């Protein structure tokens, strides 16, 4: 769907996307300057320029900013902010697709029990000291949950929205019980806080490897999902209508759920499960530009990235020097946004 008089006060996509991209760029720059050490936006770009030049082999021997400030930008804050942006973008896209594929406005990226599976993997590492890296364990946990949920949903027929939700619920409950059991049985005071922080979702300590995982997954899988925009549109009136429009409903749903799950699994591995980004933001974007996925998905990515950049900035600075898990911040911000959207939607007389 292009910018034709598509109807009512929906805003034109091009300008909205440009503004959203500009806001994201400014947000990333400003967010890096915020924190205990004072930095100017120009410092951020100077550091980036130095390092990019360095990577190309022509950088200065000594950073223009001085080693300390440069280290703060390049080694600490920038990777964390970029991880937040990539995770936010990925979660928003994954949530939007999950909502469309299951035709469930309350669906989020974790619908298939992925976050519970990832949590079980992560907690196993944190508590039991299983000898693998935490992100690897979390990703494996998410994958096991995905396979279990899709198998359960697909038993004896096609994967319908209802079956997907129920299968995800079953897997999530089981994995949560497993997680609780592990914590109850063997967590000590120290590991307890670490576990809680992970379960609530946190970007603390995110470095360049985290940027690589989150940005790579979001760029590759997210683009793949945008490519399916038309197909996702065709699901608006349900499976029968989609099939009548020439969509292979069963296969398409399986593929889309798998891609969303891989994306979510990679993000959960980096950040734990951060709620509300994938649930509330797609609704907000849909409200502005309408439900066409070729507009909805890219814009959700931009808005999700900006949102999580600021949520994480709040998480690490508001109670300085203590840090909140960013999941708590997104929930605090997300719940009122969601309530406002529901109210506006009702006010707009849109119940169908």
């Amino acid at each position, binding site marked *: 769907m*292009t910018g034709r008089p598509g109807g009512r006060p929906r805003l034109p996509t091009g300008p909205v996307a440009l503004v959203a991209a500009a806001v994201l760029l400014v947000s990333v720059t400003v967010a890096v300057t915020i924190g205990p050490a004072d930095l100017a936006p120009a410092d951020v770009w100077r550091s980036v320029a130095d390092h990019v030049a360095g990577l190309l082999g022509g950088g200065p021997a000594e950073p223009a900013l001085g080693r300390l400030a440069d280290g703060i930008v390049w080694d600490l804050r920038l990777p964390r902010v970029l991880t937040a942006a990539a995770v936010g973008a990925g979660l928003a896209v994954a949530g939007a697709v999950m909502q469309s594929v299951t035709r469930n406005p309350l669906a989020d990226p974790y619908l298939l029990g992925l976050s519970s599976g990832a949590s079980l993997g992560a907690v196993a590492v944190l508590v039991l000291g299983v000898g693998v890296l935490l992100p690897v364990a979390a990703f494996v946990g998410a994958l096991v949950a995905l396979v279990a949920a899709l198998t359960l949903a697909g038993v004896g027929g096609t994967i319908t929205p209802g079956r997907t939700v129920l299968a995800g619920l079953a897997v999530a409950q089981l994995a949560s019980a497993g997680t609780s059991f592990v914590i109850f049985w063997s967590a000590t005071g120290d590991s307890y806080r670490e576990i809680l922080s992970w379960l609530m979702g946190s970007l603390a300590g995110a470095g360049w490897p985290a940027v690589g995982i989150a940005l790579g997954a979001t760029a590759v899988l997210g683009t793949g999902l945008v490519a399916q925009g038309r197909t996702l549109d*065709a699901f608006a*009136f349900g499976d*029968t209508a989609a*099939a009548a*429009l020439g969509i292979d409903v069963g296969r398409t749903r399986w593929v889309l759920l798998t891609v969303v799950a891989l994306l979510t699994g990679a993000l959960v591995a980096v950040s734990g499960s951060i709620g509300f980004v994938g649930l509330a933001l797609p609704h907000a974007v849909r409200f502005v530009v309408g*439900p066409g996925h070729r507009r909805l998905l890219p814009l959700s990515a931009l808005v999700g990235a900006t949102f999580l950049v600021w949520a994480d900035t709040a998480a690490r600075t508001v109670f300085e020097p203590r840090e909140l898990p960013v999941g708590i911040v997104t929930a605090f911000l997300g719940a009122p946004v969601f309530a406002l959207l529901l109210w506006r939607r009702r006010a707009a007389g*849109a119940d*169908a």
Partner: protein
Amino acid sequence: MSLRLTDVAWSAGEVRVLDGVTAAAPGGRLTGLLGPNGAGKSTLLRVVGGVLAPDAGSVHLDGADLLALPRRERARRVALVEQEAVAAWPLTVREAVHLGRTPHLSRWGGLTARDHAAVDAALEAAGVSALADRRLGTLSGGERQRAHLARALAQEPRVLLLDEPTNHLDVHARLELLALLRSLVAADVTVVAALHDLNLAAAACDHVVLLADGRVAAEGPVEEVLVPDVVEPVYGVRCDVLTHPVTGRPVLTFS
């Protein structure tokens, strides 16, 4: 383009919903698909519309095997208007009608001028041009049904299938919709509508197929099928046929 079904069978688990249906819908005519609840009308439409794959049998459109066509190809020839399709999110009429272009679109390209023309033509043909920017949720039942019809017409189908299109519509909206279907037939679209109301079928259809228990109980012109000897055993009611004083079409009464 005439539609021909041969020995079409479809089962849901152990239940044979369609038990060897052989029937035809003549090209450029309005065919009524009739039968009691559970006779298999909706299932049959879904098989022809490519939503369900039949266990056996064939569906031909002017000699071309519809079941062997790629899905998108089929969706450019056959469109289906379901009962009560509800959107997951608020859509405007035009946005909904755009979806009808799905089988014509490439993955990355936008809608072409040709697509927009088809959408405008579909809105016009269904009489909803003036409602294009309204949300579906704000329309009356009749308007909404015509919007769904416009979505199907945007597919530019040769065959249009409708499942109980007049359900929940008042008398005025019903007649309006039937007039619309007649105008499509006049434009050489083959229309097949599952209908509950035998009198509506008697008044509007050129050809009727009467289903009972997943089989064809009778097929032919209205005057031959909607007669007491055929209708009574299928519906289990007493039936008398009168002649409409103005139109001369059959009118059925039941007791």
